């Protein structure tokens, strides 16, 4: 698929179907800050799940801390349920090198030992640097390394892609 074909709202319908298939009984959604957290929030509602989806940040486990330092921001992990023994579906907007996922899985383990962790993303843009794959990737695109792709959300809650 070309970048021009990336219509976030229609891809979301695919994600909803994919996550419905991945989620086990008693399982929980955890969105990766920030784009993944928006997606998880909407999935939680559309799947009729009780309570709030979890939000997870990679900040405290990132592997580029010594080069990039701590960014200022409101990135805080909020997991309003037990992780121990639970089936978790991680949700993110874009899967790229896999480094964020590695950091986030470490972060998750600081809260307990989950029964299983699956990954669902809107876009898989290739370029993996770690042995990490998504159980559900709605679309695969090839992008040059110089381009940054991320999800945006407008005031009405509608999704679109930002390419820089």
């Amino acid at each position, binding site marked *: 698929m070309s970048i021009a074909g990336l219509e976030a709202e229609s891809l979301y319908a695919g994600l909803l179907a994919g996550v419905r298939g991945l989620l086990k009984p008693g399982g929980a959604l955890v969105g990766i800050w920030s784009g993944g957290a928006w997606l998880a929030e909407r999935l939680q509602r559309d799947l009729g799940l009780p309570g709030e989806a979890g939000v997870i940040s990679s*900040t*405290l*486990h990132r592997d580029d*801390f*010594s080069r*990039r*330092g*701590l960014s*200022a*921001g*409101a*990135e*805080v*992990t909020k997991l309003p349920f037990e*992780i*121990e023994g639970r089936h978790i579906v991680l949700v993110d907007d874009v899967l790229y090198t896999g480094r964020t996922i590695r950091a986030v899985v*470490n972060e998750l*383990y*600081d*809260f*307990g030992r989950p029964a299983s962790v699956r990954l669902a993303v809107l876009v898989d843009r290739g370029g993996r640097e770690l042995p990490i794959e998504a159980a559900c990737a709605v679309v695969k695109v090839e992008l040059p390394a110089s381009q940054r792709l991320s999800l945006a959300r407008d005031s009405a809650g509608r999704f679109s892609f930002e390419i820089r």
Partner: protein
Amino acid sequence: MFVRRNPQLNRNDELIHLLSIEGLPASIVHHILDTAGTFLSVNDREVKKVPLLRGKSVFNLFFENSTRTRTTFEIAAKRLSADVINLDIARSSTAKGESLLDTIANLSAMHADMFVVRHSESGAPYLIARHCAPHVHVVNAGDGGHSHPTQGLLDMYTIRHYKRDFHELTVAIVGDIVHSRVARSDIHALTTLGVPEIRAVGPKTLVPGDLKEMGVRVCHDMAEGIRGADVIIMLRLQNERMGGAMLPSAGEFFKTFGLTAEKLALARPDAIVMHPGPINRGVEIDSSVADGKQSVILPQVTFGIAVRMAVMSIIAGNSA
């Protein structure tokens, strides 16, 4: 003209050492407080540790005793997964005549990544920051009568936690202002964050009139000093100042400037009472106030660990 750079900041104006709150932009102070908020939640986890300083060595250099401050720095560094080495300098090489810079050179040869320094001489941490290797970071844990920036920052975190907006607050600092590096750091921080009214309250010997130059209102009358205050910061009355020309006696001080429930009633009903510890019950603060509803003295200690984690992780992530 040659302008001397703030030694705490690198060329991109990022924090590489924490030496004093004076001269720090408000954005950096807010960044530290925001980051501390993140670290506070680490206490709620199954694993109360994050790997940001894994493989780094933090040396606690306390040339002056302070069990509490040293311990909170040690806990903070350990929660960041650093290796912590405590040096009881007062009883080691310096006692044998080694100079400060020789001590630092030797510890650097042991691959130190960060020095947390407490020294009785004002400016000692600056001297160390100027002479250490570029990858080494320095945190001032109190230097003479000059500065105690992490205490100032944890006080700001505490105020922000309970009071939110700095721009409408009246803050009274009570006691031995002139000898207090805590008071000095608090005044700089409160000014930086835009607090409109800062009062320095105490007897003439401990609160000289020229403090006005720091932008504070000087009050030699306790009632005037705390009336309508949102925040009251009590300072520890240092025993060594007692009995001399500075003060007649502890009992005398308590009668005039000690915080009792009756005096606290003059402040706003929702005022908070702070103290950097250790407290002298019945000297600067009455037990009923120290243990009372408005006291936030113990939360200050908890916040202090998160603030020190924030400072150490921010400076460790920036290079010279």
